[in-house]
């Protein structure tokens, strides 16, 4: 017998909307062994690719486990794609999870493992088998799919974990340290796969990682935790868009002065510095092409052209030193 999942019920914290928050938390608190781990987290994350950052012991894994229903919140509530986590098993139908530690089922080949995982997510047996093959090819284990999981290398097991998380086509994925223990080539491959998932536009994910570079490459929204509190929440995509108005250039040529003057006439705010370097703030309606046109008109070579961008490391360090985070630590 087959059924379709009902749409998640709208609630006060997650009102019915065409596009509900990927993750919504309202005063979410968790205590483990009587010790508070998460302190009343409140936020709405709308990104398709959310990075979860924080130092060791910040509560990242506890947050993921709580959202998956492994731990019961001591206070507050959370919603995943509009469905309350308190709904239990039903809320997990559209979710995929790639755990941090090695996890597999013994005495199975790759394809048997994924088929079982697919069936447990509600796929009919035939569909589960079909998608098991597809998911293994997607992660690059197509040739090894009939081998026992025990014979897989660490990198292959990591890929198999990703495959089991996506085999049922979830709408939300939890990726807990997906690049842990991978060599540079395998790490690159894993990042490419995660970027492919994002590019597909068909699933959203929460990526927890210590590697800021991985998160920066894959995510468009960041949640930074420190001592169980939210230290920062940042929309990387919006920040990138904002930064597209700030440009650093380095010029060469006799017409540099005329070039800067032309830009100012166009409405740009310019600041030059020694060494033919300068910063430009583009007004609305102008873009990079206008700068190139001005340079060409005044026979100026642009030897360097880059948008201003805060590295994620800067954002992370700022969050760690922010008064809010300091208050959390206190």
């Amino acid at each position, binding site marked *: *017998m*087959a*059924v*379709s*999942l009902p749409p998640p019920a709208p609630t006060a914290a997650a009102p019915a909307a065409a596009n509900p928050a990927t993750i919504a938390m309202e005063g979410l608190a968790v205590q*483990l*062994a009587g*010790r508070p781990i998460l302190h009343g987290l409140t936020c709405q994350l709308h990104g398709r690719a959310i990075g979860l950052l924080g130092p060791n012991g910040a509560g990242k894994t506890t947050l993921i*486990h709580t959202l*998956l*229903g*492994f731990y019961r919140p001591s206070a507050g509530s959370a919603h995943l794609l509009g469905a309350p986590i308190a709904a*239990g*098993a*039903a809320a*997990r*139908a559209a*979710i*995929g*999870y790639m*755990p941090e*530690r*090695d*996890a*597999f*089922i*013994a*005495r199975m080949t790759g394809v*048997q493992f994924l088929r*079982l*995982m697919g*069936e*447990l*997510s*509600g*796929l*009919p*047996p035939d*569909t589960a088998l079909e*998608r098991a*093959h*597809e998911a293994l*090819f*997607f992660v690059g284990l*197509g040739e090894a799919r009939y081998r026992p999981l025990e014979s897989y290398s660490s990198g292959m097991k990591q890929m198999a974990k990703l495959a*089991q998380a*996506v085999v*049922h*086509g*979830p*709408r939300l994925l*939890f990726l807990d340290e997906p690049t842990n223990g991978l060599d540079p080539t395998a790490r690159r491959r894993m990042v490419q796969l995660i970027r*492919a*998932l994002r590019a*597909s536009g*068909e*699933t959203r994910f929460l990526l927890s990682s210590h590697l800021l570079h991985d998160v920066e490459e894959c995510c468009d929204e960041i949640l930074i935790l420190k001592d169980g509190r939210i230290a920062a929440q940042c929309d990387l995509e919006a920040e990138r868009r904002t930064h597209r108005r700030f440009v650093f250039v380095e010029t060469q040529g006799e017409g540099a002065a005329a070039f800067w003057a032309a830009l100012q006439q166009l409405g740009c705010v310019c600041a030059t510095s020694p060494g033919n370097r300068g910063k430009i703030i583009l007004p609305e309606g102008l873009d990079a092409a206008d700068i190139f046109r001005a340079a060409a008109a005044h026979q100026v070579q642009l030897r360097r052209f880059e948008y201003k961008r805060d590295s994620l490391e800067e954002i992370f360090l700022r969050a760690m030193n922010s008064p809010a985070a300091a208050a959390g630590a206190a």
Partner: protein
Amino acid sequence: MPIFEHAYHPYDGPLTAPRRLPLAIARRGLAEAFASRLVVLLLGAAAIATLVFAILIYLHYNLPALRILRLAVTKLVPIDAQFFTVFLVIAAVLAFFLALWLGPPAIARDQANNALPLYLSRPITRPQYLWGKMLPLLLLLSVVTWLPGLFLFVLQASLAGGHWFAANLPIAEGIFLGSLVWIVLLSLLANALSAALKRRWPATAALVGLFFIPGIVGGILDNFLATPWGRLLSPLALMRIIWQGLFRLNLPAYGFVPGPNGGRVWGVLPPVPAWSAWLVVALLAAGCLALLARSLRPYPPIR
């Protein structure tokens, strides 16, 4: 999605009803069980035992066969409650070995490979996971206990006639309930030890120990304290008491009893009421469920 695309595609098709999800685990468990030669051997032994008992029943109603074998009906084992109890004891022993082989690795392997987060991050609950793990064992134990037992009962009833069926209906009830208690207890104990000890062989050893060591301790207690209650420590003695009650038998249990001059002599032990055995079995089952509730967690509890 075609595999050559190597791309991610969501799934929008129909989903299996949540109550049927544990069947996927059970199917896998059954496939693994039938891949074992020992399981096939034990199932074969159960089939042979059933065949022998069926032949014994058939001989009662086949005079030409008796003539060929030069046997008199009066010399054959009578088909009564004790006949079926003997069958059930043989079936119970086979069931014990099946449970010993299949039960301990069931959850322990998942625990050892951190598989519980994979199961429980999906739309199944802990009770559903446990149900999926227990179902293959319950099915296989049913195949060697009450299913052939009821087959023999129906065979006897069909040969003896309606009056025998009506007069001996409690035997059928005894076969079914007696087997059910045994197989549920075995499955719960095997899975609880598997989940708690997280390794196959320690769980196997614990299961064997649980069935025999308390019996020895109970015997010692009975002997020294001159009480019949020590028997309640032994799962085997518990089942004996329960089955006797269900089959309405009154077979004496032997042990050391107070003798003349304050000594001990081998004799018939005073009976223990059946309700006390049911109570201990219920407590044992509740203990198993509590142990399972504590052990079946995706990640170990933080202390």
